[in-house]
């Protein structure tokens, strides 16, 4: 469950830690002082990591109420996801589909799955191999934003692309 995101996030942190450690050991006198010297992207992420993906591509897209239609702003992000994944052909992803709290539990499980499926279909339509994309729905069980108004609920209607292979 939340372990999937946690693991892949942690993998990035572990990788970053190793890079920093080795960099530190190798050159004690001339410490590199910018991201490029460390082999990192401009904002400090290890290329190919979940952090790189999240920060430099965008791991989340949002949906309208009760809808699983890929919006134009979401398509821009998904196109970038495909480009990025083309650079790392051994990477597989899991799409986590989520719903806001303004629905019933069972329906929202299916709605989250429908959003994840729509996202998967879009990525495949842009050339990603079907074997590289799995899906998982959390329904309304894992909101990122807690509040009681429309602006906030919209942040919870999302599909998140995670590097890793759980789901079905």
């Amino acid at each position, binding site marked *: 469950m939340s372990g999937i995101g946690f693991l892949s996030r942690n993998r990035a942190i572990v990788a970053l830690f190793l890079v920093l450690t080795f960099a530190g050991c190798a050159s004690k006198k001339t410490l590199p002082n910018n991201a490029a010297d460390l082999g990192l992207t401009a904002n400090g992420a290890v290329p190919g990591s979940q952090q790189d993906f999240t920060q430099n591509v965008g791991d989340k897209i949002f949906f309208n109420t009760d809808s699983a239609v890929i919006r134009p702003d979401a398509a821009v992000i998904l196109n970038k996801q495909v480009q990025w994944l083309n650079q790392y052909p051994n990477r597989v992803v899991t799409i986590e589909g989520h719903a806001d709290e303004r629905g019933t539990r069972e*329906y929202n499980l299916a709605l989250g799955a429908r959003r994840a499926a729509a996202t998967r279909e879009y990525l495949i339509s842009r050339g990603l191999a079907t074997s590289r994309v799995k899906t*998982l729905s959390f329904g309304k069980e894992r909101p990122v934003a807690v509040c009681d108004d429309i602006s906030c609920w919209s942040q919870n209607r999302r599909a998140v692309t995670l590097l890793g292979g759980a789901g079905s």
Partner: protein
Amino acid sequence: MHLIYRTFDASKWVLMLMFVMVLSSIKPSFAVVEIDINQANIEPLPIAVIDFVSSDPAGKQISDVVEADLARSGLFNPVKKAAFIQKITDPNATPRFADWQVINAQALVTGLVSREADGRLKVEFRLWDVFAGQQLIGQRLFAKSENWRRLAHIVADAIYERLTGEKGYFDTRVVFVSESGPKTDRVKQLAIMDQDGANLKTLTNGNDLVLTPRFSPSKQEITYMSFEGGQPRVYLLQLETGQRELVGNFPGMTFSPRFSPDGQKVIMSLQEGGNANIYTMDLRSRRTTRLTNTAAIDTSPSYSPDGSQIVFESDRGGRQQLYVMDANGGNQRRISFGSGSYSTPVWSPRGDLIAFTKRAGGKFSIGVMKTDGSRERILTTGFHNEGPTWAPNGRVLMFFRQPAGAGGPQLTSIDLTGYNEQRIATPNFASDPAWSPLLE
């Protein structure tokens, strides 16, 4: 769990009843006290429940639980003990009815609690019609002392049944999802408790997200959904042994499970890409059967009590609406036509009504309608009410209510008339209640 349940037949009571009958015959009006529970917002019946006579603390504990059950039903109004005139020390003697008439107690419950040589508790109780001067019930019950609350619930059920003409529902349990931690990372555990919130026990450790537990109609077993191993699937859990079992081997997420009325099948949704369809799995043959096949979300299936029909929700027409089909999947027809969307239908154990969650105008309501969709009645409306479950007598519904913002859900019960909302206190947030059948 061993309970012996039988009625007095001591000959001296026959004599006393005859005496009462002679007395009654010279009264001008003689109507046995009873409650018509089909009337909305009835005046609760004043009832006096004495502290059951005992040298054991269990005496008062049992009568307190009896009184609390009756009060929470909304149909009874216990008379304050400070108002009692007669102090009953011998519950086997006929009460001084005049003393109870003066304080306007319509009914009186007396009782005696003692211990058998083997340590079992014995409860002898009587229900009296104060104004008719008549005994309505006299029963003697035994149970192991750890089951003292069940004894009390059985006494309360007997009183409820005698005075309302309907089966009681106090000797039942509720399985639900106990929720703790922040909303963005809620820990959810299956838990079970008596219908009044006592004897709470958690059934899962909280490592896996678990949802929608439902009772077997015939066994100490529940079906529920778990995200164990990152694969959301329907499981069975034996309450006595703790043994768990995966239901079927489907290629996608299975969810929204419920038993058939004979307990032999689990009906549930299977996610297939963007669509969800309804399947059954026979628990003996392991055979799976597809019942719906639409490019839509079909979920929340619930059988009619005779097993011949299934109500479910579907967004095949755009928004979520309620549909009924034959048990083999045939003859699918929409039954909800009101404004808004309808979900989580549950067929009443009496067979006459379907309870549901309705979403309209930014509010979430709990309501009931006839099984053909007519005569919709909303029982409660608010920011978020969801997921009704029926008490086994079909008179009371329990559901969960969620406030806006960072708070969490809590369980509430409501009478079928729409009156008598009662919060069920739980130590943590609670959702997805499912009522058990009457215990054996």
